[in-house]
């Protein structure tokens, strides 16, 4: 795809502003009605999906250039995909999220990148991780004493892919170790990619660095294919989306599961029993890349076809990604199966969940904006009266752990795996 391929969408976008709100049918209050972090924070129409459609047209037609502001507009999209969900309540022929990423790709190809992005991408190239300052040699430290198998050498039930955040972040490494412990207790033979375990590079794609992403993805796919593993399990929602949706586009054909899906199956099969009471009221945050962006990739090749003179459709039927079939129930079923835990919902949940602020690499590039986005979510979480905010993504956890609500109050942030561990 190129930006030019989105021309028809740019022209057919009707400026309705649906991309700035959660689906109207789901709206319960003014306070938690908006959906797009960048348009809510920056306020100008330019920062909405509609604005970005129009900006792209303008750039292609040569009516403006990549000023600092334009570059900021492009790269401040968190690629969270909520504009896409809201748009598609009514529209069947627009793809705002794909467009926003293509706009980033186009900017990157022209060298219009942020200094912080350069550091991240350089580290990806040199150290195979997008966490600046982290090195390849330290990547497997978290699993040193766990005696894990190597899927390239040993036969395993699943390939466990922790992702960079769980691998390097000392506050999160224990979560990963807990998962392994739980899996082992359930009798699952777990392996990793060992020395071939590298960054999935999904965030590179979210930031518009398609070339770097493709290079890293191709190497990872090659390693996975070589191992012959049939199922990959990851606790990271970013990695999950990357493997399940993006790598599938590049030909990866293995089953990809998030830890919550796998744990939920173990619970249902009776292989994992949650018996200990955990007296907590919790609210659950749906990570963008597990929820609305967690839908399975369906290969499609086709073209637009007009029927009834001018009505747009596709031949053959084109898959429609609108968040309808993301992973929402598995984490909720796990939480509700823990004795003593009470789940209270926020207003923006499931396919219309508010982003944590880390999407699109913004936690590394626009700190103030990313913090504001996370604070918004903590405000929403605190409004439920919950004791803890539970999620299933290390990026979300990291964002929320430093966040405060509009009254300056924090909330206890928990990985869903921690919650499970407490119940065993």
């Amino acid at each position, binding site marked *: 795809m190129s930006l030019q391929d989105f*021309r*028809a969408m740019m*022209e*057919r*976008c*009707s*400026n*309705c*502003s*649906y991309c700035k*709100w959660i*689906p*109207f*049918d*789901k*709206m*319960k*209050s*003014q306070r938690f*009605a908006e959906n797009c972090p960048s348009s809510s924070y*920056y*306020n*100008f*129409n*330019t920062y909405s999906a*509609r*604005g970005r459609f*129009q*900006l792209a047209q*303008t*750039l292609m037609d040569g*009516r*403006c*250039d990549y*000023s600092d*502001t334009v570059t900021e*507009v492009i790269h401040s999209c968190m690629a969270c995909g909520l504009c896409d*969900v809201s*748009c*598609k*309540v*009514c*529209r*069947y*022929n627009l793809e705002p999220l794909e467009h926003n990423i293509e706009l980033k790709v186009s900017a990157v190809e022209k060298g219009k990148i942020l200094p912080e992005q350069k550091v991240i991408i350089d580290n990806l190239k040199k150290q195979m991780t997008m966490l600046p300052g982290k090195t390849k040699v330290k990547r497997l430290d978290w699993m040193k004493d766990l005696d894990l198998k190597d899927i390239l050498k040993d036969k395993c039930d699943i390939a466990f892919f922790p992702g960079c955040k769980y691998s390097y972040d000392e506050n999160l490494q224990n979560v990963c170790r807990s998962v392994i412990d739980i899996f082992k207790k359930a009798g699952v033979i777990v392996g990793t990619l060992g020395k071939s375990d590298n960054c999935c590079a999904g965030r590179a794609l979210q930031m518009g660095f398609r070339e770097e992403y493709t290079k890293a993805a191709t190497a990872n796919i090659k390693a996975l294919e070589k191992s012959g593993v049939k199922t990959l399990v990851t606790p990271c929602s970013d990695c999950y989306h990357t493997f399940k949706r993006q790598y599938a586009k590049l030909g990866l054909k293995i089953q990809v599961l998030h830890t919550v899906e796998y744990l939920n199956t173990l619970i249902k099969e009776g292989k994992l029993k949650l018996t200990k009471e955990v007296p907590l009221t919790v609210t659950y945050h749906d990570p963008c890349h597990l929820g609305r962006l967690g839908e399975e990739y369906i290969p499609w090749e086709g073209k637009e*076809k007009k*029927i*009834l*003179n*001018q*009505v*747009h*459709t*596709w*031949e*053959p*039927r084109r898959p*429609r990604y609108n*968040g*309808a079939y993301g992973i929402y129930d598995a984490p909720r079923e796990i939480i509700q199966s823990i004795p003593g835990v009470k789940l209270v919902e926020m207003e923006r949940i499931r396919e219309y969940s508010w982003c944590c602020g880390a999407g699109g690499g913004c936690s590394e590039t626009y700190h103030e904006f990313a913090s504001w986005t996370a604070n918004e979510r903590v405000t929403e979480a605190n409004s439920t009266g919950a004791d803890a905010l539970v999620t299933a993504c290390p990026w979300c956890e990291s964002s929320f752990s430093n966040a405060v609500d509009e009254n300056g109050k924090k909330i206890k942030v928990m990985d869903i795996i921690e919650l499970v561990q407490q119940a065993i």
Partner: protein
Amino acid sequence: MALDKEKYQAFEDIVGKRNISQDPGVLETYRCIAQQSSAHYGPYVDHMTPLPQAVILPGSTEEVQNIIKLCNKYKIQFKASTTFWSAMGFIGSDYAVQIDMRRMKYLEIDEKNQMAIIEPHAIGAVVQAEAMKVGLNLNVPGVGCSSSVLASTSGWVGFGPSSYFMGCAGENLLGAEWVLPDGRIMRTGSLGAGAGWFCGEGPGPSARGIARGFAGSAGTMGICCRLAIRLHPWPGPANFPTEGTIPAYRAVLPDNFKTYTLCFPSWDAYAQAFNLFFENQDILYLGHRQFNMFGRDAKGAMVNILTDPDKQFCDLPELMKDPYIKKQTELMKIDIQVVIAGMTKRNMEYKEKAIDKILELTGGWKNEMMLKPEIVNWVLMYLLRLGHKNLNYTFCGAYEGNYGMSPNHFVTAPLMEEASEIKDKWAKKYTSIADTGGDSDMGSISIIGGGGATGWEFFVNFDAYDKDSIKGTKEFIDSTQEWMFKKGLGVDMGRWNADLRKSDGKNYSQEEHDAMYIKMPQPMFLTYNWKIRNVFNPNNLTGSYYRTLTPEKLKTD
């Protein structure tokens, strides 16, 4: 072109650095590409409104006032908008600033006095969501819940499906706070007397006729910053109990809510039913011919697509051939969707009986397919929140309202088949517009005042990315305008704004307006508008959407 440094700095000093921009990329996103939306003129290929000198986002009435004072000082035009749907909210000259009101979103529900005090960015959905918590609701205008309530209340007639029960937006206007085009603040109604927001017409000044309008002034001058609207009873839950898989969301409401698609054997029976609804003003909560906007032949199939999360438009041809859907679609050829809401059990029984009686008197019936629970719950959600208005564009990416015939149902109903046939023949011959069965009329049982009036609008769907489709649509509306003139029906809806914005997206000059309006059969009221404008807007800074005729022209011609 951008403002010089001194002027830009002066505006920046008012709103702060992060709330103003003259970056060319930002400015370009504040141009309306009017071929995409219902702009009521054109459509024209490659049509854009002018590039603003700057985009300014005020955060308070005081900031708006200071911006307008500066505009007067520099003689620069301004235009305020909030949700920017359609060309009306965009500037019309090269020397103008675009004011984006989205930072102003104050909302207060006054439960005791059944009113809401709102700023521009309190859109219909949020006002409704907050009002429902205390058993109240607002009239969401036909434009849908994504739009500014203040805009439709202050600047337009604001009728919608619920106007039968709640009145039009304009009828719900209470106290208002305006910044006039010369920078003074006007507070109307009780607000102007320091008595609060509860009344629009006193004890302070009533400026309702000046401030807002429809066919006369077509909008307003200055910027309305805050106003109060009357709220109405909502006998339902505090929140919509929405369920279902996107996009087929639906709401299972209590038994005191029902929706029916009422069908009639003839247009005469349809008009008679409307009349009976108007004569008995307490039957409906909402009345709207909604799904016919997809076209007489396609509406049944479209309802089945939209209520099934796995269906798409590629399923349309097959569904249109499905014998059951085809039969049901035929049975709702002349139809309207209604919602009734019982305030008590007895009240509900009365409403059910009243509908049955009207159907008996007119030979009508309730459509069977539309009584399926999954469809009922979807229709209730759709009509009560009006959060699916972007379906207007879903077929092709662009639509224009067409005909907009007389609001008197007895004038219009006999012409419906002729109008439908014109559209059907055009679609089949020229293919520039979607061919969905000729009749694509939609509209609400709306204004109660004056014996009742009805909105009539044929949806013309065309492709905003296809130059032939755009040109062909313009030609189609030109031809329906000719037919409208022959029938004595006035201006086609697709041409309502043709005298307000030129094909290059710019305002008409006063000279051009004078030349146009002097030929009107009764131009006097436009000279009255001219006098009002001169009092409130001496520097003529708000564009040509406020229709005026120079009084001297009337004397000399």
